[in-house]
């Protein structure tokens, strides 16, 4: 266990945004909260998963809802902290530590808000290794761990518990309804995990991964080196395409942002085209019409100059981008893992083939 510095949190925010693979919401508001908490004297400890006892209880937190609503209601550390203590009251026992359900995007920073509020450490792990749009798209669901209970809190003091559901899909449906009713943004503490479950099914050391990734990007930017190369070196990733955005189509269906982005090749990719499909996050990429990269491999679209990640909500015509793939967590590569997060889970009739295979 070691204390995390505010500079590491700044790096975490940069790295988490890249691991958001186009979605997950900007970590900006979460980062502002941690800056304030640190300025007030709070400090957060990061705990290796191996330090968990098998019967320790771990809180799994995330903010749920529409990023646009979050831009108005903002993110408040007290709300996510309350989601954790509400769950402790419901369970009748205390949590040993807190972890994120998804390291990608704003939720990568959320455990630090809850941890500072409650004085508990953050476990160096998550359940996605990136960002995914739906609650059942986690390593815990792949492990068939029980999906209940869930606590949901809004800043008005509305507090809810989903006590029991038959499946992760049901949890997604019920919690989504509650979330919409309180204004389409809420802090949640999802099904608590034991130390043994985290060690067996968690995607381990992703907080450290995101911090190191952010540090590599920030250092490259500072030294005027190519941040894209820094990302590839740090994550053992693969450069897929360099180009500019030539067309974007977006639509919302069933509460998700879906669409496609078309790229025209530049540099080594000149003369080729690349098309990306997304559901909040980047899902599949086609080189010259042939499927080349697909979930669960991480697809990141980066600004070719700054190395900063480009979200599916803000991608726009003319941007110079580099598409890279980063390796997926092994838990998602099993046939069962692919049932949850493979291309067919997103409606693409494709057999998964990793670019790293």
């Amino acid at each position, binding site marked *: 266990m070691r204390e995390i510095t505010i500079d590491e949190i700044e790096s975490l925010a940069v790295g988490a945004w890249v691991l958001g693979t186009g979605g997950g919401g900007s970590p900006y*508001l979460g980062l*502002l*909260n941690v800056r*304030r908490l640190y300025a007030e004297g709070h400090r957060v400890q990061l705990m290796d998963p191996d330090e968990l006892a098998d019967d320790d209880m771990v809180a799994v937190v995330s903010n749920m*809802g*529409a*990023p*646009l*609503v979050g*831009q*108005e*209601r*903002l*993110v*408040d*550390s*007290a709300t996510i902290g309350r989601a954790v203590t509400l769950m402790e009251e419901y369970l009748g026992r205390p949590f040993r530590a807190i972890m994120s359900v998804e390291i990608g995007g704003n939720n990568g920073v959320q455990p630090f808000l809850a941890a500072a509020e409650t004085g508990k450490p953050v476990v160096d792990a998550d359940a996605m290794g990136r960002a995914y749009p739906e609650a059942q798209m986690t390593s815990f669901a792949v492990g068939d761990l029980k999906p209940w209970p869930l606590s949901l809190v809004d*800043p*008005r*003091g509305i507090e809810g518990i989903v006590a029991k559901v038959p499946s992760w899909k049901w949890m997604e449906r019920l919690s989504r309804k509650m979330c*919409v009713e309180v*204004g*389409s943004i809420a802090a949640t503490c999802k099904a608590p995990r034991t130390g043994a479950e985290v060690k067996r099914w968690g995607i381990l050391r992703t907080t450290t991964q995101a911090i190191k990734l952010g540090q590599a990007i920030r250092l490259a930017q500072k030294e005027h080196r190519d941040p894209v190369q820094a990302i590839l070196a740090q994550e053992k990733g693969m450069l897929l395409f360099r180009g*500019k955005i*030539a067309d974007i189509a*977006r*639509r*919302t269906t069933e*509460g*998700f*942002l879906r669409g496609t982005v078309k790229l*025209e090749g530049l540099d080594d990719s000149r003369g080729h085209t690349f098309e990306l499909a997304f559901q*909040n996050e980047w899902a599949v990429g086609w080189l010259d019409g042939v499927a080349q990269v697909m979930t669960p491999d991480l697809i990141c679209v980066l600004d070719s100059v700054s190395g900063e990640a480009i979200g599916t*909500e*803000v991608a*726009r*015509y*003319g*941007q*110079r981008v580099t598409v890279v793939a980063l390796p997926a967590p092994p838990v998602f590569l099993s046939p069962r893992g692919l049932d949850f997060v493979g291309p067919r889970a997103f409606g693409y009739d494709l057999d998964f083939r990793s670019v790293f295979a």
Partner: protein
Amino acid sequence: MRRRIGIDVGGTNTDAVLLEDDRVLHAVKTPTTADVLTGVRLALESTARAMGSEPVQAVMIGTTHFVNAVVQRRDLAPVGALRIGLPASRSLPPFCDWPADLAALVRGQVHMVEGGHDYDGRPIMPLDERAVAAAARAMNAAGIACVAISSIFSPLDPAMEDRAAEILRAEMPGASITLSHDLGRIGLLERENVALLNACLAPLAQHTVQAFEEALRQAGIAAPLFITQNDGTVIRAELAARFPVLSFASGPTNSMRGAAFLTGLKNALVVDVGGTTSDVGALKAGFPREANAIVHVGGVRTLFRMPDLLSIGLGGGSHVEARDGRIAIGPRSVGFRLPELARIFGGPQLTTSDIAVRAGLLSLGEASRVADIADSFTRDTLAEAARMLEEAVDRMKTEATDVPLLAVGGGAFLVPDRLPGCSEVLRPAHAAVANAVGAAIAQVSGEADQVFQGMTRTEAMAAAERIARDRAVEAGADGATLSLVDIEDLPIAYLPGGALRVRARVVGEIAAG
């Protein structure tokens, strides 16, 4: 026949033009004076002499005075911030991400009270009117005369900001009150920041607009006064005095629009090459394309009506050096110290101006001082400058077809006569006063940016256009001349009911009288 006077008050020069229909009848350049008024008066008097007996219909002034005040941290008033939204948003109070030096000058008091709305129009909490009144009394007691009010989702429902303003006016007579929904978009912190910046500039804006009006009076010009805005349109001076932030980017905007007018093109890219940077903007139907992104002003994150500009480190004073076997230009620049530091003036630093003189593109300083530069080095440097411009121009294009490029600014000699991706490169006449021309030709606009629910896409877009039209008329437009120049819709992830965010903008001619 329509006659108008356009004036651009820059940091260095005050330019004025007299425009008759499409012709520049008179142009004058005078130094900007510390009191602003004298420079404007001198420019106006020169123009008035050229006018003869024919009156002008309107005077338009564009000024960088307000944005400079923020950047230079001067003439800013302390502001009372009133945010409506508790218990939401408590942990990130107003000013929470401001640069410390600016916050120290502007943060008068911070009050947060219960209220605000959800995205679907339901109140988060009822407005706590007693808390608003208490905040007003506390601000009054501290002598705070400028207030910014922000409320969660106020762009969807401004009622709580309006009601709080009513209470404040009763408790704090004479206070200047800025409401966030009048200025900003969705995004509470960024919209609130715009309101706070606006509020801290209120006394300066009041004073400056009065000085402009006084200058008009002294020059014997009776026409109504308008102030140009970021989007290339104008609002009545008394309205502009309430919204100084809306003129932050009027400098580059007016120069782009002026360049377009002088060449007769409505859809083009414009590159303004200065001493340190080149700013590339895009004109669509004669107006600058808007940035749909965060813009930092004096270190503060804002999101409001600003032109989409791409700035690259290429200017007439940019350093030139050979680095790892290739030519590197900028981003460092000698800037306004060109006459002492550049090689052509006997200085030690090789700049793009030296290269241009060596290549015969520019007459400046002493060409003999750069005669030693190899032809190949000169050629490679100009090629690198052209490559930087080509990439910047391409990044600003919204379609693959070639578009005309208008080159303006003191460093425009760096723009080659042919550039890939550009159908032609034009250098307008009167380029030196393009910004004053841009001011003179400005029209009046109105904008709406809202989330609509339970409507078809067509209905939502019609509703947005109606709101924009109402706002244009309020700003001084003739309703009969309004036309829609920009409309776009963005579906919103995770919100049920087919929620659609629509932005619409209309423009029209200034209403008579």
